[in-house]
């Protein structure tokens, strides 16, 4: 599998993303946002965390209109894999690849902490190495991660099983109103209808080494590596 990590002005987690991809045996390189195409043979496009364009206008808004995003949209339309982490998730919703929007955290605070998540399904290219309903611990670090969508969109996301991860406590209990940022239905990440595009606020790429707090994030990258090996 080959992955391209898109570098926007203000991205700052691209190194972490590259490291996590390579740790799972995925060949990975960066591509500049001003390019009009992804490198030949790209299976997975990764939009990393950071503060693209200084979060000007709205988080991810300007990055979502950069030249490379037409190529990412075309890649997704062909059924290519796309992973957006944190600012990358914000870019995905701004680009129309995923529905809804991420607004300011309900309590106005930038949250930076370890966080438990419930894996909603384990039958996708991103989660096949997890168990369904497994509780994992990863890191979150964002000021605008409060997932919001209109009632019709939410009903569709929930009805079609497109929620990827929910914020939960250490026992795996998802409690109404207990997300760290005010997200509707405690949503931490969502899929596109074909489960090939995933956007999530937490940082699985930061939890791949026992030296820095755990390895629960590594399985996402191993899942991706497996999905292509078996394709």
């Amino acid at each position, binding site marked *: 599998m080959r992955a391209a990590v898109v570098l926007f002005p203000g991205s700052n987690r691209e190194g972490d993303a590259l490291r996590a991809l390579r740790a799972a045996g995925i060949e990975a390189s960066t591509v500049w946002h001003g390019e009009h195409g992804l490198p030949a043979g790209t299976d997975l496009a990764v939009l990393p965390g950071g503060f693209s364009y200084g979060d000007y206008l709205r988080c991810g808004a300007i990055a979502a209109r950069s030249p490379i995003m037409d190529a990412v949209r075309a890649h997704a339309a062909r059924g290519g894999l796309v992973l957006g982490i944190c600012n990358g998730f914000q870019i995905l919703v701004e680009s129309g690849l995923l529905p*809804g929007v991420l607004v300011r955290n309900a309590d*106005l605070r930038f949250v930076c902490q370890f966080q438990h998540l419930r894996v909603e399904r384990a039958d996708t290219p991103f989660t096949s190495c997890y168990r369904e309903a497994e509780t994992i611990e990863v890191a979150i670090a964002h000021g605008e991660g409060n997932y919001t969508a209109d009632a019709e969109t939410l009903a569709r996301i929930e009805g079609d099983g497109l929620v990827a991860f929910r914020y939960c406590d250490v026992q795996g209990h998802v409690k109404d109103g207990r997300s760290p940022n005010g997200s509707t239905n405690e949503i931490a990440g969502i899929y596109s209808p074909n489960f090939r595009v995933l956007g999530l606020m937490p940082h699985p790429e930061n939890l791949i080494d026992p030296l820095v707090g755990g390895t629960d994030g590594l399985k996402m990258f191993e899942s991706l590596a497996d999905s292509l090996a078996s394709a």
Partner: protein
Amino acid sequence: MKARITVTLKTGILDPQGKAIEGALRSLAIPGVESVRQGKVFDIELSDTAAAGAEQTLKEACDKLLANTVVENYRIELL
């Protein structure tokens, strides 16, 4: 020609910044403040050649970039 675009959050969308400002105004004892919603203003200068279809051009600018119509409304004023 000049135009002003005002982008505001839709009714019902949580506006924590507006709420914080509302609280600050109350703490300053500014009388009669019922509520505050924060928005954005864009002052745009258009070339004379663009003036003819200005309303349409600016609507496109709002829909494509200036507003996220999932949570925001916009108002265009030609000045």
